[in-house]
């Protein structure tokens, strides 16, 4: 194997990692922002699924029937996915912020509901023809999909923008204050409920967008349970990213790499470590992302103890105006 062929292989694998990490990145950023406002949403998996299903269905109905070009259909599909994700999040917001029910249980509900709804409503879309990625030939990268490239760039821009918004702007300060000390924020005239609603909806939209990006661009098509636990991995990444969108970026890409690894290793061109002749080992490798999530949580918890990083102080507690507490 020549050096140039190896470089090419490495670029393919890295590009693949960025591609498969980007939906995860969207969901992770959405959850970071939502948790920064004090609301934990464990419904990411459900919101991603409903986003993936609705986005794919939209694309199929729009472009397969010749109503519009495939690319326009993609954009609208992503948008619809985000809208449906935020609709589910609205339910979570109502239950946890207005009705003050337990955030953990409500988040689980969102996941159950999203899983069931996407399975019912998406029944007719299973296995339908998926959007074909267009091919671009670029220097260095070689032949890549244009849509995937745009998606990666979108993710790479959103992460620092979110960081800036959260850490350096006035609305970002309000967001953090609501998550750390809502009664103090309230006394300064910040509408705690409104802000929490807003960012929970944002989190839902990002999860829905991530799901739709999956079913439309990163691995096109719809099957039941498409996200296979990615939403839950995102919940874990938020903790490891220490609620920092920029850290979230790297962690999501790393997981993209891990998720692709079993696939990449099947490549017979790979020297020494190819699993092409050993499919049962490849099956074993499928466990990697899940094992890795547990491991980063272990590492993350030690680091958190050392650096005294912590969750937003009011995370998980409903705010009740006029009652004692944070």
């Amino acid at each position, binding site marked *: 194997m020549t050096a140039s062929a190896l470089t090419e292989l490495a670029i393919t694998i890295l590009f693949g990692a960025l591609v498969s990490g980007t939906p995860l990145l969207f969901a992770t950023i959405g959850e970071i922002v939502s948790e920064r406002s004090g609301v934990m949403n*464990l419904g990411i998996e*459900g919101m991603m699924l409903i986003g993936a299903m609705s986005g794919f269905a939209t694309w199929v109905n729009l472009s397969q029937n010749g109503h519009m070009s495939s690319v326009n259909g993609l954009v609208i599909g992503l948008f619809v996915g985000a809208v449906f994700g935020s609709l589910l999040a609205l*339910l979570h917001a109502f*239950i946890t912020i*207005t*009705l*003050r*029910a*337990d955030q*953990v*249980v*409500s988040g*689980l*509900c969102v996941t*159950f*509901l*999203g*899983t*069931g*709804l*996407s*399975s*019912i*409503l998406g*029944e007719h879309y299973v296995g339908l023809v998926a959007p074909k990625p267009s091919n671009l030939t670029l220097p260095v990268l070689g032949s890549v999909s244009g849509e995937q490239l745009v998606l990666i760039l979108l993710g790479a821009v959103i992460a620092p923008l979110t960081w800036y918004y959260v850490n350096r702007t006035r609305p970002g300060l309000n967001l953090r204050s609501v998550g750390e000390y809502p009664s103090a924020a309230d006394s300064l005239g910040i*509408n*705690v*409920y409104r802000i929490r609603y807003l960012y929970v909806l944002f989190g839902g939209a990002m999860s829905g967008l991530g799901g739709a990006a999956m079913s439309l661009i990163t691995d096109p098509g719809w099957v*039941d349970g498409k996200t*296979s*636990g990615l939403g*839950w*991995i995102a*919940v*874990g990444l938020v*903790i490891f990213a220490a609620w920092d969108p920029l850290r979230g970026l790297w962690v999501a890409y790393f997981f993209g790499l891990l998720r692709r690894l079993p696939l990449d290793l099947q490549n017979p061109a790979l020297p020494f470590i190819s699993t092409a002749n050993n*499919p*049962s080992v490849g*099956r*074993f490798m*499928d*466990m990697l992302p*899940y*094992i890795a*999530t*547990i491991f980063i*949580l*272990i590492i993350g*918890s*030690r680091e958190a103890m050392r650096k005294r990083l912590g969750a937003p102080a009011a995370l998980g507690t409903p705010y009740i*105006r006029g009652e004692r507490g944070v």
Partner: protein
Amino acid sequence: MKRFFASHRLRIETRLDNPGWLGAASSILGVVLALIVGGVVLKAAGASDPIATYQAILKEAFGTFADWKAGFSALLNHQACPKGMLCFGPLSDTLVKTSPILLTTLACIVAFRMKLWNIGADGQMFFGAWAATAVAVFILPKTTDRPVMLAAMALAGILAGALYGAIPGFLKAKLNINEIITTLMMNYIAYKWLEFFVVVGPWSIGDFESTGNFPASATWPRLTQYVKSIPAFAGLTAHPGIFLGIAAAILLAWILYRSRWGYQIRVIGENPKAARYAGINLGRNIILVMALSGALAGLAGMNEVAALRILSGRFQRGYGFTGVIVAWLARLNPIAAILVSFLFGGLLVGTKLIQPQGIASMLQGVILFVVVGTELLFRYRVRVEKVDHSILPSSGESHDS
């Protein structure tokens, strides 16, 4: 209408009393609302008549009175079930589904009582099924006596499940790692683990993606085996696993309400700070309760393989999640869980043949949502009250509800 909204507002205040009827009321309300919402979704998904769909589910799950009557008369007259009647067939299928649901529900109940969110009953069940299979097919000889074999399988399932549950418990107790994520990740690890063994790996026989049939001693006896002496049992697959579930429910109820340990579990769940002041060891209890939770789920896995008589790549996922919902609907009461599990077993059986496929999980999601939403009836009183504008400086300002 506009004037009504301007002069009234929703007020949520803390409830001081806690009437007993609320629990049952909110569970029933949850089911009713879920059926309504489910009907709307079914309509949207293209079903022509949701009520007919529900009736079909009910018939498929429990049979009709005519079926039961025919079944009873066949049983009394020592005859087979008349042709064209289902007799006890649906009930038997539902009972078969009830036992794994009940056991995973109990697994969730014991953990949830301590506010430990064990979402990994599914994985623990898979691991229990794997261990029970290892004992039945690969460790003990085929000629082992049935009681010995089943007991060994149950023990293996319990131990494997307990170990698999104790790991996230340990991580939670020692490193304060969120048990929701770890148990969930371990679900996927267990799925892949099982797939590795029975689909491509060392346990798969030929191209069947399974271990092949278990030796007869490693299976639950089914009612249909006694068809020679009782003809009405023809085709019924009901097995004694349900008694295992009921016994576990009673044992768990005893632990929770009558034993010192159960008291500690409930105190930690209600108020961990008070528990700590009272000298209850939180960390040890977290690990123990997660192990007990995993053990119950592992037993569910053993029960399921002994009923299926084979371990294949299509081993059913999702019982652990159904357990979460049933646990909540039963208000974390092990005895109530028996009844709710039976109803949910019916839901699973009844929706098996009905399109669209996801209806069971959607209904479960909606039920849980409504039950959680009405949870607030326990803690708060919702009141619509008149706003007296004469004491407010201006009516332009909106109010937070």
